[in-house]
């Protein structure tokens, strides 16, 4: 469970800056910064941010749960996204998801126990001609099949089945 970076309130204060600036900053950009720093939005951080910005906690929570970019649970160090849009789907991207899920021992939407990998699916990245598309840590890979997924995982240090 060393994946979960301990949340430190004083560090958040550094990230947020002067309290007086609260009204000039946008909630979204602050949440993005915190998400990038901790790979999730710690509960205490949401409470502090609300207080700091003078935004009701209910509204902060509403925003934090609405956007896919935010997560209330820690995400892995590597984020693997597989496109399940129509074009990728007919070209077999489901097999790619199954293979990666099998290798990592997790279901789509889950994170490995060691906090290394998160597997997610999405519905079209606009690169249909390259399908099936996988995106690993922001880099797009085209024409990925199950064997290709194995190769990509190998580059990330995943050999064979991982329990």
């Amino acid at each position: 469970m060393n994946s979960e970076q301990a949340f430190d309130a004083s560090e958040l204060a550094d990230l947020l800056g002067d309290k007086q600036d609260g009204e000039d900053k946008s909630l979204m950009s602050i949440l993005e910064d915190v998400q990038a720093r901790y790979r999730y939005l710690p509960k205490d951080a949401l409470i502090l941010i609300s207080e700091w910005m003078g935004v009701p906690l209910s509204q902060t929570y509403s925003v934090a749960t609405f956007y896919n970019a935010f997560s209330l649970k820690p995400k892995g160090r590597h984020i693997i996204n597989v496109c399940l849009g129509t074009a990728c789907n007919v070209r077999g991207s489901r097999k790619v998801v199954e293979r990666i899920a099998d290798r990592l021992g997790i279901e789509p939407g889950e994170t490995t126990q060691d906090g290394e990998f998160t597997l997610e699916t999405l519905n079209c990245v606009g690169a249909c001609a390259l399908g099936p598309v996988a995106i690993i840590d922001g880099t797009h890979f085209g024409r990925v099949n199950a064997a290709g997924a194995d190769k990509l995982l190998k580059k990330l240090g995943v050999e064979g089945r991982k329990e």
Partner: protein
Amino acid sequence: MTTLTIDGRQVEALRGSTVLEAARENHIEIPTLCYHEALEPYAGCRLCVVELVTPKGSQLVASCVYAAEDGLVVKTNSGIVQESRRMTVELLLAAAPKAKVIQDLAAEMGIEEPRVSLGDSDCILCGLCVRACKEIVGANAISLVNRGFAKEVKPPFEIGSNACTGCTTCVLVCPTGAIKLEDVLDSRSVHRWESDFEARECKICGDHYLAPEFAPDLKELLGEEEV
């Protein structure tokens, strides 16, 4: 004053009012679910759609947010309006089959079974409770969380907090009765938000009254940590 035509009748409305307000002011009925006089319009339920007749053709608009302007020609119960409302009610019934108000609306329109099933909630996500809590009470104890099919009304982190004061405005304003209030002698529970309150006994009359603590102490929630 603004003069417009609703259902072939010339009516007058105060400047700045919406088509819905103009209609109601003149005793013309338009059904609504997410509208409340005391709250900002939300245009969420789409039941208040009316047909706007323009030289370029007709269009459907949500009357609760459409400004009443001079010379507007509006039909509140034309064919396309009825068709749209019927579809809306069928979808609401598909999502919230347990809500009495939706069942009644559906029965009125002759809808027996929705063609699809989208859940078994009694909440139609009209946002009235959220807006009442924010605009009238100022407590901001609840909000719409998640998105799409997972969307629902919850307090932050889905746990009861003392941001909720137990005022029960949300219970009163809910059109479907989805928010249940339980008052037992010395306790009050608003089940949907997991809010529980202990009532105090009046030392003179012996009756019970609610004296909730206002505003959560965030530092307390975080322990001793200084911010």
